[in-house]
């Protein structure tokens, strides 16, 4: 925790989360933006359109596509042609992009896309959970989750830096909770253009669609070579573990703000119970921790910032001495009755010497409010595990029996 806002108060403005993101994108000097509106991402693309209409993003084209499928497809072309390329979407839009997501990562195109996380249909629901991006976890994109407006804004610059690193060349999804972050007005320090220019060098890929140096992109790979392409993608993800940390550190050096690299921690050093979570719920959990700590409960928080690559080592280092670990998930793998953070954390412990019980809660589906009491109840469940062992590994929270 190197967070240091105090001396920045004078630079703060109160803006909507979407505006903070759009403003961050502007500071990153993209050449091509393409997106299709969908709630709660809409304000981001509206703000960007306005910036372009006002000539505030030089050398940038906005491609007003007819669908999300084409939005990301346009960025396949633009990124391959050497343009810094950006999009934003959520939920149905992201699911529609599914096939193109693989294409972008497979061709190693460093596109950056903000996801204003939202539940997926059916039933149709526009409110926040993280099922949309979690459902895309195997598409080869780096996935970062932000805790608040300041973080998603700053993460945007970090994302381009990570994606465009010649050792990485992978697309990055920066995820913010829909409405909770996208529509909230919070004081933030908007990214300073000059500092970002220092932080983020121009995008100059070694290979691009260039008639002076013709190359074939996205060739047809048979069983002789396909495996190696996949291997190299995985290798880039492995390297990204360090680059994500570096990007956060370098950002701290220049801007003085830090929210963690792969992960962040809060009160974990002596914690018996460690709660794991991603996104805006982290803020609520911190409040609960403050309250419980005051009552002598040794509870801490492990915030997961990078879900892909999954930071196994960083997580193990934090949880290895805990008595119980609780993963909170705003998503579910139906048929397994587990959320992704839970499954992956639990799975990562197998074949290690770390012997800590892990339990999971599916929480806040479709935008259901997560009150402080819910988190407190979850901590109570964790205490029971400490006393008498696991009774239920993974469960829904706050089910309304009368609706079942």
């Amino acid at each position, binding site marked *: 925790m190197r967070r240091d806002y105090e001396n920045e108060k004078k630079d703060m403005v109160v803006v909507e989360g979407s505006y903070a993101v759009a403003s961050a994108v502007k500071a990153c000097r993209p*050449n091509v933006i393409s997106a299709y509106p969908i709630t709660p991402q809409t304000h981001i693309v509206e703000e960007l359109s306005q910036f372009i209409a006002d000539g505030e993003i030089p050398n940038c084209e906005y*491609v007003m596509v007819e*669908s999300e*499928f084409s939005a990301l497809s346009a960025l396949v072309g*633009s990124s391959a*042609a050497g343009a810094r390329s950006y999009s934003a979407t959520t939920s149905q839009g992201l699911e529609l992009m599914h096939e193109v997501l693989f294409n972008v990562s497979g061709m190693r195109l460093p596109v950056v896309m903000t996801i204003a996380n939202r539940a997926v249909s059916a039933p149709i629901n526009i409110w926040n959970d993280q099922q949309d991006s979690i459902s895309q976890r195997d598409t080869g994109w780096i996935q970062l989750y932000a805790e608040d407006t300041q973080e998603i804004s700053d993460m945007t610059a970090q994302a381009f830096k990570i994606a465009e690193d010649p050792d990485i060349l992978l697309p990055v999804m920066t995820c913010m909770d829909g409405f909770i972050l996208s529509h909230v007005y919070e004081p933030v320090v908007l990214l300073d253009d000059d500092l970002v220019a220092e932080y983020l060098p121009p995008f100059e890929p070694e290979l691009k669609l260039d*008639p002076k140096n013709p190359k*074939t992109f996205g060739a*047809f790979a048979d069983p002789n070579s396909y495996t190696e392409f996949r291997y190299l993608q995985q290798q880039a993800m492995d390297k990204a573990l360090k680059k994500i940390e570096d990007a956060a550190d370098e950002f701290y050096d220049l801007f003085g703000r830090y929210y963690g690299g792969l992960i962040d921690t809060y009160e974990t050093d002596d914690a018996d119970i460690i709660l794991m979570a991603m996104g805006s719920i982290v803020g609520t959990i911190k409040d609960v921790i403050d309250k419980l700590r005051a009552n002598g409960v040794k509870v801490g928080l492990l915030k997961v910032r990078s879900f892909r690559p999954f930071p196994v080592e960083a997580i193990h280092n934090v949880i290895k001495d805990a008595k119980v670990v609780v993963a909170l998930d705003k998503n579910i793998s139906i048929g397994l009755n587990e959320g992704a953070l839970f499954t992956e954390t639990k799975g990562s412990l197998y074949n290690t010497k770390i012997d800590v019980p892990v339990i999971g809660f599916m929480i806040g589906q479709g935008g259901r409010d997560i009150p402080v009491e819910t988190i407190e109840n979850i901590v109570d469940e964790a205490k029971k595990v400490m006393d008498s062992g696991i009774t239920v590994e993974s469960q829904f929270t706050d089910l309304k029996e009368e609706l079942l």
Partner: protein
Amino acid sequence: MKSLLAPGHRGCAGCCDAMAAKFTLMAAGEDCIVVSPTGCLEVMTTPYPESSWEIPWIHSLFENNAAVASGIEAALKAKGEMGKTKIIAMGGDGATLDIGMRSVSGAFERGHDFTFVCIDNEAYMNTGVQRSGATPFAASTTTSPAGTVSFGNIRPKKNMPAIIAAHGSPYVATTSIGYPKDMIRKVKAAVDVEGPTYVHAHAPCTTGWGFDTSKTVEVAKMAVETCLWPLYEMEDGEITKVKKVKNPKPVEDYLKMQRRFKHLFTKEGGDEMIKKIQALADENIEKFGLQ
């Protein structure tokens, strides 16, 4: 004229797609970027680590080559590199008329400066000759087979050139790989006109249509000579040039050459279907003033 499609691709002998790609590149020259979706052309020209393309080439999905081309254009514009480089999206009839339709429509409506070349071999060849929106009336394909009660595909060809013209494209042309000079001239005209332009190339597929590998050009010419495939150009939505056909040949001569129409000559009621096809050709003569 230098061929920018290297020999040694893996298409069938007598492959129409290879010819279409070759002619397109002859027209465009070296300073171009090509996008092609999944389909025969892509599979046969880019088996990693080899590539037949001597210009920058990128694969798109089966359904989005016009959108990928839009992005390339946007990138060149944004970076001030939009000079002489031609952007060409080249896709099969399935990729153009069916699955890629929305992305094609979007790109034409937005008015990007690129040329779309549809290689119309009248079915999904890469997956084994299934019916597409461009499959002609009464053709037998593996998903619209002729059978005891069926004469094959019952729907007429989707009129893609008209749909594109309705988007306000400044230049739309039909051509055929049976007429290389015509095709090269039209693609050249298309790439030279600013804005989204379209060339629809009729491309007989030896494997899918069932004719000898040496006959691709002959079959292609017969489609034009029977008036089943009229060659014309449209500027700003108006037909401005038409290739006249002096003495149209009976459609039977064309149908007989191909396995996909074989049932019309063996099955009871086939002659009625042939009459209907002749009526389609007669309609073209009338509509496009082919004589």
